[in-house]
């Protein structure tokens, strides 16, 4: 067992985990953050995406023991003061959600992209989401949602 400390969704968090525990297991089974979805568990589908020090990574390919000192954001940390973020609202407005299983990963991958490139081209959006699979809507609505969130004029 190891004691691992990290910042999770803005809160200092400490967990005791077996050495062989994956981050997705810790998030879902130990911390109850069920928005991080298990999909292929091989790094192909992106359902388990989290932001790790600001970058979108796959929590099924990360040991929790290797996350000591990291800053992690899951989908539960994206909303701001209890309200949906502009990006989340854009997914709803554009009809980019169908079954919703891929949506947490899609939103976190989009957030990582927009944090780095606030005004991405369509090509950059496609590339930014290349690690996330959706089996329902196709990708057009999702790309539109990211584009709309990026180019929405502020108040």
């Amino acid at each position, binding site marked *: 067992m190891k004691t691992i400390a990290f910042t999770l969704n803005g809160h200092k968090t400490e967990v005791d985990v077996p050495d062989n525990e*994956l981050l997705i297991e810790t998030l879902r089974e130990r911390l109850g953050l069920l928005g991080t979805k298990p999909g292929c568990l091989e790094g192909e589908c*992106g359902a388990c995406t989290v932001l790790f020090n600001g970058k*979108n990574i796959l929590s099924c390919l990360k*040991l929790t*023991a*290797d996350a*000591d000192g990291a800053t992690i954001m899951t989908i539960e940390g994206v909303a701001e003061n209890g309200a949906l973020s502009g990006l989340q609202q854009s997914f709803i407005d554009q009809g980019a959600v169908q079954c919703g299983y891929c949506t947490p990963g899609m939103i976190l991958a989009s957030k990582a992209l927009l944090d780095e490139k606030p005004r991405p081209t369509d090509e950059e959006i496609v*590339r930014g989401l290349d*690690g996330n699979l959706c089996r329902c809507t196709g990708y057009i609505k999702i790309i539109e949602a990211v584009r709309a969130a990026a180019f929405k004029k502020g108040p």
Partner: protein
Amino acid sequence: MPHLCPFSYHAPKSLKEALTLLKRPQGCLLAGGTILLNTLKKTKKGPQNVVGLSRIKALGGAKETETTLTLGAMATIAEIERLSAVADGFPSLSAACRQLATTPVRNMATVGGNIASRFFWADLPAVLMSLEARLILETPAGRKEMSVDTFVSRTPSGPFILSSIELLKGRRAAFYLRHTRTMPVDIPAMAVAFSAQDRDGRLANVHLVLNSGVAVPTRLKETQKLFEGKAPRDVKPADLRAALAQDTSGLRLDDYKRLCLELDAGKIIARLKK
């Protein structure tokens, strides 16, 4: 039920400590995790000791001098892709990083892991071979240096940690051409890495490496010879086909891959003429 077999995880902060830990029974190294952890999910009996390299600062980042660019083995593919020194000086490496897997994998996977994993479809060893990169290995007996050719052809004996990759700067034409079966993010079905220098309009120091259709990246020596010393316009298609046929005669390439290779060689010449 845990997805991974039980093991002890160690997070050393220095190369010396890591090498000591690696001597423990059934030890293995963990870099970005994109290959090793997937492998461990499919095995019931894994290593007893996993030595993570993420805390060793000496393995990260990149250093530049007037003549060299040194990549830390733990630099991620995404970090390498973003380096202006790579984009400007080593465009084939930049292209390979850009095409490798998906964004989250590029954020996690490391250059060292890509080389040391020894997967036949890994993109970077072939590109680094074509760029004559040197690998720096840390061993209990001290530092060793070797070419990528040597590294891919045989595993160094005893415990070692690939610590960095050194590239010599210099003007050269360099390309990485990659074919996938369905989507661009797939592993390559076949790929070719090329680099050459220009000496008064003629090709010099030519490197042509076939990747992924073969067990380890393989130099196409006859085709390299054919290019050497010639102006690109003087390479005759018939000679090129003959040289490629000779290079691939002992390799198990199907007709599709042979055709891809011929087309790629043609594309390289077309790009060089430009």
